[in-house]
């Protein structure tokens, strides 16, 4: 791709919207995932007693639920990203490609 073409794509409003939205969305989800995971690890490191608390008077502990929740959250977050990417981001990319004739 030549410099002129690069500049033409970079100036396109669809490109700017795509980059802006996806970068913000990707980093937001990344930070969320980091907070969830290192929050869990942090509790293991600093507050073991809290994780040992029983849920509903049974045998299962809070830690167990949180551990499974981390796994489920990871899956849900990837799902949210893929849904947004397959819809909004792919639409923007398609519109951009139409604009620049590729």
């Amino acid at each position, binding site marked *: 791709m030549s410099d002129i073409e690069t500049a033409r*794509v970079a100036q396109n409003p669809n490109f700017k919207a795509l980059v802006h939205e996806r970068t913000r969305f990707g980093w937001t989800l990344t930070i969320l995932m980091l907070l969830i995971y290192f929050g869990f690890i942090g509790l293991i490191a600093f507050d073991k007693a809290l994780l*040992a608390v029983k849920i509903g008077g049974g045998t*299962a502990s809070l830690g167990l639920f949180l*551990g499974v929740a981390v796994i489920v959250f*990871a899956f849900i977050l*990837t799902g949210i990203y*893929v849904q947004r990417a397959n819809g909004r981001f792919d639409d923007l990319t398609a519109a951009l490609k139409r604009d620049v004739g590729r």
Partner: protein
Amino acid sequence: MNRLKHPIVLGGTLAVVAVTAAFAAGPDLGAVKQSATNWPAIGMFAFFVLFTLGITYKAAKGTKSAADFYAAGGGISAGTNSLAIAGDYMSAASFLGISGLVYTSGFDGLIYSTGFLVGWPIVLFLIAERLRNLGKFTFADVASFRLDQTSIRIISATGTLVVVAFYLIAQMVGAGKLIQLLFGLPYLYAVIIVGVLMIVYVAFGGMKATTWVQVIKACLLLGGATFMAGAVLYKYGFNPETLFAAAVATHPKGDAIMAPGGLVSNPIEAISLGVGLMFGTAGLPHILMRFFTVSDAQAARKSVFYATGLIGYFYILTFIIGFGGISLLMSDPAYFTLDAAGAFDKLKGMIGGTNMVAVNLANAVGGPYFLGFISAVAFATILAVVAGLTLAGASAVSHDLYAQVIARGRVNEGAEVRLSKIAAVVIGIVAIYLGYVFENQNVAFMVGLAFSVAASCNFPVLTMSILWRGTTTWGALIGGLVGLIAAVGMVVLSKAVWVTTFGNPVAIFPYDNPALFSMPLAFLTIFVVSKLDNTRRAQRERALFDAQFVRSETGIGADGAHAH
């Protein structure tokens, strides 16, 4: 099953082995004595081998170009690729090691499961699509997109080969020991069988065969684990609470198994382990290669989504299997080595070691033929993982080192693919030799080291070159090298090597996991060196970022353009 009644003497402290093996993703079984030959398991494994060799034969006929060999011609669907990615993750030690860890420590097993999983969302949000848009066959294609080919290919290939080497040694030694236990075959036979089969898969079938072997194994393992977890839950009326109550009543640690124990006692250690697991995933060469086997960025992101679901599901199954082991095996003397008085140690006395929990549970819920099936799947698992590693190593040698560094891009496709096949044969032979040499060494730290190197060398070089305009060749080269040396150096100075292997009295580096220190050091070095680098080349490289950025975000220019 008679076999189980024979005591198998094991050396080493098994609880420790189970813990390290879980992280190591390559079971370190300590000193193992060979069991009686297990014909049902061998028969089922032989069937798996014949079937996969058939696939390899078919794949070999369709593997002509370099794109076929390295990336299965880009023709793998998102669903198939997600099974292959999940398969790369569901190693024998994820299965045997983590279920064994849950058996001895309960809750603590979850720490590893979550750590292995949460790297995936990060890969998806920041790397997967950009990697797909920029690269062709290896992650070095991406890292060297606008930087100096020679320097970046050398550092990327070095990172790849170091990761592959440590991972392979751990898997080969694990395979040998596991096969002694499961099949009753001698150690060296097992190592040679694994080595020869992986050479055949990779050299003849390339990425296509390697992918399908992984997919078939992933289906078998998911099916087997689902059946086992289902059978365990069935015994407790599909009520996990009843299962947990039964486990707490049986386990010597009692209710303590439902809460974090002493496994990760030091906070720094816990966080460093988490960093290594999470970002190591994003830098494993054999997994990054899988993003090039699908047709486009959309398929790449779908495969991560499905794979995350499959891996998460698998870890939840492993957790149930571990608890099933506690409640169903722990009070049955048939699964333990008995002392003179007929008593046994519930935690350390299991026949074959704590890593055999899942295997023994297979016998308990499904009888000897299901035991044979699970044993065969465990061996198939190792085979599929080493094949992927071998392909990644061979690609680094032929596509990065030979084609770009030695021949400076002046090479025809046929010669490159031929060299890749030769490299696969050489890597296979070296792996057999190393598996033989390391038979009686402690190799449990090696996969941990592989993850640390991936997190401290490959991952920083890759992300900085994609995401930061300021990255220059000098920055990436020196930063990657510093990360690599720091990760290896810190592990050598840690307890696992400095004290256990070299016999020194005190470890110089106080933690087992270096990633918390070595990874930021690599990022910092890339940043500082790039900032200081004001050569003409550095200025040109920064100017080239715009073109790279447009392509990485949109994929425009990726088709038909040369990948570098």
